[in-house]
């Protein structure tokens, strides 16, 4: 049974510029002990969706949330503030991108951990502190007892993120949501943190939702991946299958546009033209259509549903191209064809790739 089941989650914010449709009809499930990666660019709604799961968007005051989030038998969206509070930090924990700003600068690290324990367990301060020290040791902080009386600013970025992880896992939650946990870190430290997460997931059997923009991180850590674009999930699959047989043109774009150390220099990068869409004035139809090289007229009108592949029910995609065409296109792209060439070869009608001079459609 799924630990977390999100279905039809929709979140929007009222701002003075208009309604920001941050998350639009998002559904996914996370099984106990599994790691789901949510990939997307900034503005794709990946963070907002998980904050909403935690009930943290409620505090924004201008958020409107609908859909259903079931966690371990609780209906999170319908839950009262107190019920949610009891779940937060206890059953579901969350760690954030910037560990410096996410830790209270005026409180000792130990106290912040103790607080997390005592918010959910009726234990003495001393016991809670012991637990905190134990946890700090577990996440690899040297001299945990001494470090418990340090302030966050006395730690390095990597250590702070370890503290955050210790705080998240201190009550042995069933689910940990990690929102870009390594983005602010250097690559060597990132490796440390990723390894730590992987180890803890194994040891504590925690399910993880890992939110990131880095496909590499996803590939290393997760079991399943959901790719988000403009507030929607456009493709979802077990990690290996997604990388092996990506189905959505946006996923192709991502895979082909990022420079990779494991590729030779002469392998060309194929950029995704244009720029991420506005969440207020979302493109009609398939939100990706202004940037999609294979766009067709009806793509601009019809919103593609997220549907499982015929042959692979675990792999879903929201694309109006025929599965056949997609397979063809990808194989050509993979072989080094440009999107234009691939389109021509496969015979997808349309205007072709939007001009690189993206400035033209800005404004």
């Amino acid at each position, binding site marked *: 049974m799924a630990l977390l089941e999100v279905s039809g989650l929709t979140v929007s914010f009222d701002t003075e510029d208009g309604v920001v449709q941050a998350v639009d009809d998002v559904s996914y499930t996370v099984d106990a002990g599994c790691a789901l990666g949510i990939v997307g660019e900034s503005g794709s709604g990946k963070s907002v969706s998980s904050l909403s799961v*935690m009930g*943290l968007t409620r*505090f924004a*005051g201008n958020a409107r949330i609908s859909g259903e989030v079931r966690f371990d038998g609780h209906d999170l969206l319908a839950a009262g*503030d107190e019920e949610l*509070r*009891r*779940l*937060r*930090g*206890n059953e579901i*924990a*969350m760690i*954030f991108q*910037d560990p410096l*700003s*996410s*830790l*209270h*600068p*005026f*409180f000792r690290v130990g106290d912040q951990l103790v*607080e*997390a324990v005592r*918010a*959910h367990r009726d234990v003495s301060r001393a016991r809670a502190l012991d637990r905190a020290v134990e946890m700090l040791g577990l996440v690899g902080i040297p001299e945990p007892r001494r470090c418990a009386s340090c*302030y966050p*600013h006395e730690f390095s970025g990597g250590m702070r993120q370890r503290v*955050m992880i210790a*705080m998240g896992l201190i009550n042995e939650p069933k689910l940990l949501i990690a929102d870009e946990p390594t983005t602010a870190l250097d690559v060597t430290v990132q490796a440390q943190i990723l390894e730590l997460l992987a180890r803890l997931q194994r040891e504590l059997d925690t399910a993880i939702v890992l939110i990131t923009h880095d496909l590499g991180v996803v590939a290393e850590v997760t079991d399943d991946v959901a790719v988000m674009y403009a507030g929607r999930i456009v493709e979802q699959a077990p990690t290996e299958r997604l990388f092996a047989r990506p189905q959505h043109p946006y996923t192709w774009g991502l895979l082909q546009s990022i420079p990779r150390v494991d590729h030779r220099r002469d392998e060309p990068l194929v950029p995704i033209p244009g720029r991420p869409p506005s969440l207020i004035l979302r493109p009609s139809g398939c939100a990706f259509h202004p940037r999609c090289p294979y766009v067709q007229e009806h793509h601009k009108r019809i919103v593609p549903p997220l549907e499982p592949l015929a042959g692979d029910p675990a792999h879903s995609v929201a694309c109006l191209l025929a599965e056949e065409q997609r397979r063809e296109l990808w194989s050509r792209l993979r072989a080094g064809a440009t999107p234009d060439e691939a389109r021509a070869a496969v015979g997808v009608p349309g205007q072709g790739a939007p001009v690189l001079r993206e400035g033209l459609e800005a404004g």
Partner: protein
Amino acid sequence: MAGFITRRVLWMVVLLAVISVINFTIFSVLPSADPVLLRAGRSASPELVQTITRQLGLDKSKPEQYLTYMKGVVLHFDFGYSYQNQVGVRQEILDRLPATATLALGAMVVWLLVGIPIGIVSAIRRGRWQDKLAMGLALLAISAPVYWLGLVSLYLFSKEIGVIPIFQGAGSYPPDGSIVSEPIAVVGSLLLPWLVLAASFAAIYARFMRGNLSEVLDEDYIRTARAKGLSERRVVLRHGVRSAITPIVTILGLDLGILLGGAILTETVFNIPGIGRLAFDAIQKSDLPIVQGTVLIGAFFIIALNLVVDIVYAYLDPRVRY
């Protein structure tokens, strides 16, 4: 830290010296009443004028006068004698200090007790009617000059003349009492001045607190606190207020420093014999020693409290180290 304090104390001495020079220049170079002639009285003989000049030390050159003065200040903590009546300036200031301190500190307690909670409530209820009402009133309080507010409240509430005589009013500051010896009398007579003086400060602090807390509540670590599953009350009062109140120490130190140097307007309206009025009278009477003394003491409070603020801040905010 010790180095920091040493440096700041040294700088404080320099600042005070500079301020005393400026002050001395303003009051001795620019025209004002002649203290000697004042003392000499009508048709005073030139000899008498001379003696008084000598006695007041005004026969020496200006720099010499200044140096003599500073020597007294530095070596003996002696601020000289009033030109008017030969009373020691130090004694005069010490006599006036309790009144000013009682006024300022009492008002501070009032404005903190009133301003901070209002600011917190406003920040939590941001944009709602409680917030709008509180902030509207705060702006009104900030816009009303203290002397006018004082007059109006005296007119309305003072015991002698008020429409609704509730509070002790003008001229009733206990001449002999201090807050220690006659607490009830002092508090009774200072209640109205405290409230009036505290009004605009409370408003400023409420606005400041609201602004700070609003910003703090948007911080990542507040999100973390919520994610930990802390109650909203604890999130706001412990995590939020703890950060939001820290910068208040800064303005509190500044405001208190300025007030301890004399709350001229309030002291004037309520007839409180404090340092502010001493200074004001001295300016009117060109009584340079008193002016120097009060300006120095005022500057001292401002600078010293600034230093205190910085030190306290280092304790409040562990990130700050000197």
